[in-house]
């Protein structure tokens, strides 16, 4: 019986550690990434917001920027919308519909995963996206971190 209780405690402890581990993984934060060839080392969050809301079409160094979102409703996209864009899904929808109405903007593109975003960003200078910080590798450079 003591062995059973001990095994059960171990199981519970293991389960708890796993949960914390998962939680820690999910809370790794976000990284705003760009092509490694871009001559820019960092962006302020307000600058990132300006780019992803199409208020500017250039990096601070004058290079044209193209941005990509992740699929609406994904955890990464939700976190980015909340922490960087400071808009709900509905607010973003109306924001983009107004821009599209003017004929001066296209609805932003969307990719389904961190891997797809990294691949897209790495393909050309001037591209920018966001991924879970745990997915960052040496194929892209990090311009901003959102904890």
């Amino acid at each position, binding site marked *: 019986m003591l062995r059973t209780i001990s095994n059960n405690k171990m199981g519970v402890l293991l389960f708890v550690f796993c949960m914390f581990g998962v939680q820690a993984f999910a809370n790794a934060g976000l990284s705003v990434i760009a092509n490694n060839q871009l001559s820019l080392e960092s962006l302020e969050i307000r600058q990132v917001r300006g780019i992803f809301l199409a208020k500017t079409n250039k990096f601070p160094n*004058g290079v*044209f920027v193209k941005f990509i979102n992740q699929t609406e409703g994904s955890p990464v996209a939700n976190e980015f919308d909340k922490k960087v864009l400071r*808009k709900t899904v509905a*607010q973003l929808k*109306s924001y983009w519909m107004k821009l599209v*109405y003017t*004929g*001066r903007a296209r*609805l932003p593109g969307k990719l389904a995963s961190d891997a797809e975003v990294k691949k897209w960003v790495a393909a050309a200078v001037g591209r920018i996206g966001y991924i879970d910080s745990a997915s960052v590798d040496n194929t892209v450079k990090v311009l901003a971190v959102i904890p």
Partner: protein
Amino acid sequence: MNMTKRYTYALVVMLFGGMLHSIQAQALEFGAISNVKVISTDAPGESSAFAIGALDLFATHKVNENTVAFIEYVFEGDESFVLDLERLWIKRTFSDAFELAGGRFHSSLGYWNRTYHHGAIIQPTVSRPFFLDFEDGDAGILPAHTIGFIANGQLNDNFSYEASIANSSFIDSTIVGVDKVELGIGNASDRSDDKSIGLHVTYDSSSLPMTVGVFIMQNSIVENATTGTTPAFGSLSKGGELVDQIISGIDFRYQHGDFDVLAEYYNLDNDATSVGGKDDSASAYFFQFGYQATEQLKVIYRNEALDFEATDIYFQLLGTQEAEHNVIALRYDIDDANALTLEINSTDFETAGNDDFTITTLDWSFLLF
């Protein structure tokens, strides 16, 4: 309203409504813009009123990665509603420097006309600058809409362009003095082989928060008199040139912190020598100053004016009056999808015999999607 029109309107509404249920799996985005308002005026013959604005239904569809389509219908009217197809275009992106679109657009004249279209919530004030009013129903003096092709693109970090070729404009001179004359444009045909050619080049400064655009459009205004009627100018037949018009101008935008400026200047060269008139010049401008007082509240002031020679046949045909307007507006953005605007718009006519007047409007505009 006859039954055919009723069925047509119902079909359009059902089409857009039905799209809402079928679009989720497709890349079709649908929206509607409208507004309601309270109007107080001392214009002769006008009364204060409650009013609904135009119902603007629009949809955009990503046909593929490089192709986008856009359609916009507007229901508008007073005693009865008229359904107008305002925009319909399809555009392919070949590169950052070259996109090509075909269909019906807003002309590449200035910034306001190409940006704010018909959506009440989109534009900063309730009213458009008066000389940018639409041709149909509002006695507009400029070809705000065009049917043809537009190429546009970003040439480098600072310069972008729009170049268009489109149908010419027309006026039915037989109704001058009988009915309201409007500048028309053919959606499915052209009255003349002469086409409208336009070019707009924009400079976006890298060092200053300002954008400057210069534009020019050559446009033929031709006779649209039907057979058996008497045109204003002798035996000029349908398709005959009334006015050879060149519109040129500049637009300017500047933003610094909470302040912004939008200004546009137009020069209209109206050559009516082909019908025994003169080659006259007219000018129009507006200057708009905005201050974002809080995140939601903006104060806007705008001055607008139109001047032309009394001998200008173009304005004689349209029955236009020289005027100056002063507009003050307070706009409160309740959220991204609805806004309240209080606007005071005073009209001062240059010509004696016309009573100046003021229109005060409280407007509630909204976006549905």
